[in-house]
Structures are given as structure tokens and as C-alpha cells.
């Protein structure tokens, strides 16, 4: 009985000594990187990773795609969003796909729209969810060549996405 008590006491002292030298603190950071963010949104994916999953490591140019979004969205649950890509939409030169991302949403991947020359126009209007004030990114993949990217900031007064 007394022997067990001694062991426990020794261990506790040992731990305290470690904490004093900062060993425990360092180990804690190493084990749970970004734990504060992870606790709130278990599935938050960095936007760079989401973009990489869609288009790979290709560099992007600016231009040819424009995003239509309100500057201030009062209700993040339904934000009108549209885009248009400047393209002749012929068999040899058309928009293959447009990817939409919201960089502060739990899942930054919002949607992918796949066009064909029969689409006639690469233009969409829809309604999206925005958790908080953030940037909306649109990337247009052409039938050939470099993808084009556009970025628009939106101020969100009341966030969507539930939670």
C-alpha cells in the first residue's frame, strides 16, 4: 500500500519536473497541431489542397472568368452566385469545367460545372452557402491550355452551413 503511494508520488513529481523544462508543452503541440480549429470544424480542408485535388499543380492565369457575387451577403445560407467565362465554345476551344471554392467553408469545394461545346455559353447562376466573410474562387479549365482563376471577397453578416 505504502509502496504504491510512493510510486505515484514519484511519477507525479517526475511529470511536474518535465513540465518545468517545457518537455510536456512541446510534446503537446507536436501531437495536436491546429487542434483548436479541428475541434470546431472536424472536416475543414485547406483551400490549396482542395484546388490541388481538382486541377493538380498547374499554374493559373487571371482573366477570362468573372464572378458575380454581392459585396455583402446578409444571409450566408443562400448567397446568389454566378460566373461567366469568355470563350467561343467551339469544338476546338471551349470551357471544359469550372470549379468553385469558398476558402473559409468547412469544405472549401463548392461545386464543379462541366460544359461541352453544346452549352453555347459557360455561364451559371446559382445559390451557395458561405460560413463567414471570405473569398470565393472560381477556376476555369479550358479544352486546352492554362486554367484561369478569379477571386472575389464577400462579407457575410450571418453565416450559413449550419453548426
Amino acid at each position, binding site marked *: 500500500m505504502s509502496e504504491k503511494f510512493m510510486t505515484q508520488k514519484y511519477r507525479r513529481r517526475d511529470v511536474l519536473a518535465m513540465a518545468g523544462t517545457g518537455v510536456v508543452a512541446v510534446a503537446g503541440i507536436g501531437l495536436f497541431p491546429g487542434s483548436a480549429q479541428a475541434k470546431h470544424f472536424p472536416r475543414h480542408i485547406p483551400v490549396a489542397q482542395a484546388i490541388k485535388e481538382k486541377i493538380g499543380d498547374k499554374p493559373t492565369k487571371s482573366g477570362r472568368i468573372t464572378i458575380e457575387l454581392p459585396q455583402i451577403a446578409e444571409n450566408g445560407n443562400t448567397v446568389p452566385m454566378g460566373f461567366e467565362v469568355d470563350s467561343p465554345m467551339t469544338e476546338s476551344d471551349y470551357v471544359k469545367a469550372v470549379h468553385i471554392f469558398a476558402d473559409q*467553408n468547412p469544405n472549401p*469545394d463548392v461545386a464543379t460545372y462541366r460544359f461541352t*461545346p*453544346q*452549352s453555347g455559353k459557360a*455561364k451559371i447562376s446559382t445559390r451557395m*452557402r458561405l460560413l463567414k466573410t471570405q473569398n470565393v474562387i472560381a477556376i476555369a479549365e479550358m479544352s486546352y491550355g492554362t486554367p484561369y482563376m478569379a477571386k472575389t471577397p464577400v462579407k457575410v453578416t450571418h453565416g450559413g452551413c449550419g*453548426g
Partner: protein
Amino acid sequence: MAKARIKVPKSVKKGEVFQVKTLISHKMETGLRKNKKTGKMIPRMIINKFVCNYGGKDVFVSDWQAGIAANPYMAFFVKAGDSGPMNFTWTDDDGNITKKTVNIKVSG
């Protein structure tokens, strides 16, 4: 079965690029909300795929994530080919499919 609505022009000219408006009733549950009574997460339940088939081809396809608002509204464009049916399909996480067909009348 979700309720879907489509709006297309009454008639179009061949080669004309016309707007197709679509609306479907669906809660688009994100999978990030908690049931306030039980404290459990409500599982994700969204429409993840939309296909527009016209003239025997999938002319426009889109993949949706939870970032699309409830009761998804979407307007897009199609180039008029021949008169005939335009078929729409929405598929949700459970594999439920909602179908809708409209007739495209092409004149001239």
C-alpha cells in the same frame, strides 16, 4: 422524390443559345449540423450530381458539394440543336434519382 421545376423558352431558333432555369426542393443537409435534442450530428444528405441530356448527349453536368444552398436553383445555357426532349436528372447521397423531361421546340 423531390419536386423539380424547369423553365425553358416556348420555342427557340436553331443554333440559338438559350437559358434553362432549374429548381428542385431538397434540404441539402450539410452533415455539419447537430440535432439539438440528441446532440448527435445529422448525417450529410445532399444532391451531389445534376445531368442535362439533350439530343442524346450529356450537354451539361455538375457536381455539387454541401456548399450549395438548400432547394438548389441553377440557371445555365444550352445551344439549340433539333426539336426533342431535354432530360434532367438529380442524384442524391442515398442514390435517389429525380427525373424531369421538357420538350424543346426548335423552329427554323
